[in-house]
């Protein structure tokens, strides 16, 4: 069996039909990781014991002939911002290099309860802060499609693991594009659900009002399957919504003819790589051929999105990261004589440059005298951006845009220019700010063979339409 092309659907079928055992499948993925991950760096921690125990459990059920759970034996990888009981959870940061969580993230627990086998924790930008995975406190991740290039970020490890066939699927987190942008860079599917659709319990927070957990997969169908299992109200997360969860596997099969697709002009302006533009426009044309109606629209506040995002996200981050103080867990500097030294040195030595930059920015925008001019104003702009989307969704059923202005860039290319790096999120931060769902689905390649992603955004809690369109497009494109 070629495990590198295995999808959730086909892995599930292989185990169901006893063509392989869950243990054998997990073992072969570990062999693949052993062979390939030295070059890629997608994993930070392998959870071999837990995975094999879980797989053995599945095999025992199969041996007895009892009905198997829906994700029985499906190997998945988890971005290291999600905690698992008894497993090291670093969030890509040195400050948590020794942190072993005593409890499970709800989304992971739900997947395991459905029979999934967690292979390990994937590399990411420190506290999910970054667009290239170069901010990992451990080592960068290389794009499996071109090892000299970044996989995108911050869920670069998850995207690379799936793209390289080291896992069937993965969970990532998206705060400003961190699922969709790496999916686009690595040529996989990345789905960010509506804010509140998936519990954040056990997700190490970067920016609480913007953080989303979502799947990275090889196919849209797989994304639908994973979403079905992680979605839904969780009493442990007050912001998780009491909204019924449809059967997404059925949702994607519904027809798309007559759906109206908005094409916002603000997403096709300066800075958009011509090859990306061409691929995305071709994709839109394809969707028109399938029977969708293409409608030019405007999202007028788009140009304020990146600054707005960096005010709100850093403000929340400065507070969320305050708990990493060396007092109770995590890194504590050995060179501290006083309490204040312990705080300063532990945090100075434990955090990387980008995390510190964002903590300082966030502290600044919340400070007395600056709060109104920055934080409060950013909240107002966020409301305007949300209204842009609401107005657009009066007229259209979904919005299509490029996921990222460029294909994957070279490692080191933007490291010294944080502003250029921040602009890599220009098409993705808007959906996080508005809380609407979005997917990135591969829509072609550059001349250099680098994947390009098409972004489809939808109404609040209408992931169904988003993935249905992505699914139909994916099918039309492949053939």
């Amino acid at each position, binding site marked *: 069996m070629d495990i590198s092309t295995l999808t959730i659907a086909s892995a599930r079928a292989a185990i169901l039909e006893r063509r392989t055992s869950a243990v054998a499948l997990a073992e072969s993925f570990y062999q693949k990781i052993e062979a390939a991950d030295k070059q890629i760096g997608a994993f930070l921690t392998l959870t071999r014991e837990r995975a094999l125990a879980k797989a053995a459990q599945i095999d025992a059920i199969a041996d007895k002939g009892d009905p198997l759970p829906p994700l029985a034996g499906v190997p998945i990888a988890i971005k290291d911002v*999600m*905690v698992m009981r008894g497993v090291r*959870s670093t*969030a890509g940061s040195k400050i*948590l290099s020794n*942190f072993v*969580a*005593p*409890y499970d*993230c709800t989304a992971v627990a739900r997947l395991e309860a459905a029979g999934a086998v967690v292979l390990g924790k994937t590399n990411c930008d420190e506290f999910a802060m970054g667009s290239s995975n170069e901010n990992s406190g451990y080592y960068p991740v290389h794009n499996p499609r071109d090892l000299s290039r970044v996989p995108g970020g911050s869920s670069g490890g998850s995207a690379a693991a799936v793209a390289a066939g080291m896992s069937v699927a993965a969970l990532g987190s998206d705060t400003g594009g961190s699922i969709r942008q790496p999916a686009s860079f690595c040529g996989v599917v990345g789905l960010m659900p509506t804010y509140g659709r998936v519990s*954040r*319990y*056990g*997700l*190490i*927070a970067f*920016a*609480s*009002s913007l953080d989303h957990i979502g799947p990275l997969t090889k196919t849209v169908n797989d994304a639908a399957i994973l979403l079905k299992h992680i979605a839904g109200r969780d*009493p*442990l*997360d*007050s*912001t998780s919504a009491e909204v019924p969860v449809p059967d997404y596997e059925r949702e994607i099969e519904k027809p798309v003819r007559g759906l109206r697709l908005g094409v916002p002009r603000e997403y096709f302006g300066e800075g958009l790589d011509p090859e990306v533009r061409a691929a995305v426009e071709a994709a839109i044309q394809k969707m028109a051929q399938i029977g969708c109606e293409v409608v030019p629209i405007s999202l007028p506040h788009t140009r304020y999105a990146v600054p707005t995002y960096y005010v709100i996200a850093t*403000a*929340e981050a*400065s*507070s969320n*990261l*305050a*708990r*990493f*103080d060396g*007092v*109770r*867990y995590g890194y504590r500097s050995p060179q501290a004589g006083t*309490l204040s030294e312990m*705080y300063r040195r532990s945090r100075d030595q434990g955090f990387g440059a980008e995390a510190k930059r964002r903590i300082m920015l966030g*502290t600044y925008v*919340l*400070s*007395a005298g600056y*709060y109104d001019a920055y*934080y409060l104003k950013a909240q107002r702009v966020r409301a305007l951006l949300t209204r842009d989307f609401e107005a657009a969704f009066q007229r259209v059923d979904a919005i299509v845009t490029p996921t990222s202005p460029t294909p994957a860039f070279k490692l080191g290319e933007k490291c010294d220019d944080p502003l250029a790096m921040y602009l890599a999120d220009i098409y993705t931060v808007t959906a996080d700010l508005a809380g609407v769902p979005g997917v990135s689905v591969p829509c072609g390649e550059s001349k250099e063979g680098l994947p390009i992603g098409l972004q489809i955004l939808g109404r609040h809690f209408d992931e169904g339409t988003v993935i249905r369109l992505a699914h139909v497009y994916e099918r039309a494109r492949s053939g």
Partner: protein
Amino acid sequence: MATSQDTRAAVRAHYEPVIGLEVHVHLLTASKIFCSCSTRFGDPPNANVCPVCLGLPGALPVLNQQAVQFATLAAMALNCRINERSIFARKNYFYPDLPKGYQVSQYDKPLAEFGWIEVPATGGGAKKIGITRVHLEEDAGKSLHEGFPDSYDHTYLDLNRCGVPLIEIVSEPDLRSPEEAYEYLTRLKEIILYTGVSDCNMEEGSLRCDANISVRPAGQREFGTKTEIKNVNSFRFIRQALEYEIERHITVIESGGRIVQETRLFNSNEGKTYGMRSKEEAHDYRYFPEPDLLPLVVDAAWQRQIRALLPELPAARRARMMREYSLTEDDVYTLTRTQGMADQFEEAARAAKNPKRVANLVIGDLLGRLKAQGLEIEQSPISMKGVAMSADLVESGAISGKILKDLYDKAFERKEDFPAIYEKEKPRQITDTAAIEKMIDEVIAANPKQVEQYRAGKTTMKGFFVGQVMKASKGQANPALVNELLDKKLS
């Protein structure tokens, strides 16, 4: 000496103190405000903790509805307007006993505002003290700096208290003397105790108080520079600390100096306040709305439900007791000093024939004896049932006031309740018919007018005759026999 004190008083009279108080009260919920850990006091350190109250990464808060209900009930008892929608905010600061690096509190949209309570005014009558706001928040843990072998260079943390629900009650700067501040705290605590949402136990830290104090020349509108007094653990000490601070402010101003706005700690052994190093309190808390919690909505229906749980509050109770038992305001204040005493009194008053007499006995005969022995009402050898019984005995003339006092003394000496003492010590009853008849004859002879009235049909006079005969017998005549014989003689 007298002269300097007089001068001092004269100087003091030129200044008006302005005081505002911030009171923190633990709510008596079984579990913490954002997790299901127990709030029990006194458990071994760190026994009641979980990922949420430890502030572990990824853990999220879920609001305890009981805490909301208790906070709302307290706010209603303090005459506040409840905000249907209030917002939790993060108050950011670093401290080892604050695991998340922020406290979840409420800031610009608190649960309740615009309340007031009445305190007895210095010159008599009542004075309204405004309550700016009542908001919900979580408590922090405790740093233990002492008691461990390596305490000289280690601090230990007990996070059991972390996440225990608190309400903060902020008063308007309406208080004008340490005495008023003391009265305000006493009334506030009484109201909270009546609502049952807190035990207000200062020793266990379930009621804590900070005071803001400034002075201004009498007649000036603007406030002077204020200082904040923290770390005071009794109402008496607050009064003392405020006295000290007022004198200090006046002395500084009179000598041409300026008050520095700062936080000061009260040292109760010395009766003095000391400024904290200003660096430590130069805080910018960077408040912003807590994104992990939804806005708190206490809608009209829920408010109605909670309001229905409001018990009769102290002020209303005092007014009713004055009416119901024909008591003076002073008597009522004495009888309602604690809720327990008031409850016991009312129980006795309801059981007795003459509530007013019960009040007199409690105030005149019981409290004095308790005070002499340093006892609280709850420790009284004579129960309220006993007081009620004794009141009825005096009422019926069965015993005299003098005998009652003797019996009370014996009850306190022997630590026995009144019924037991009475059973043993009650005066030997006169059951000798001839002796009683003789007394009746004497009473009839001495009161011809009353006899005439009685025989003319005013049968209510009979009580008078019974009383006279009992008096003549020093309370020792058998009342039943007296009644029976009186009927015969008067008919």
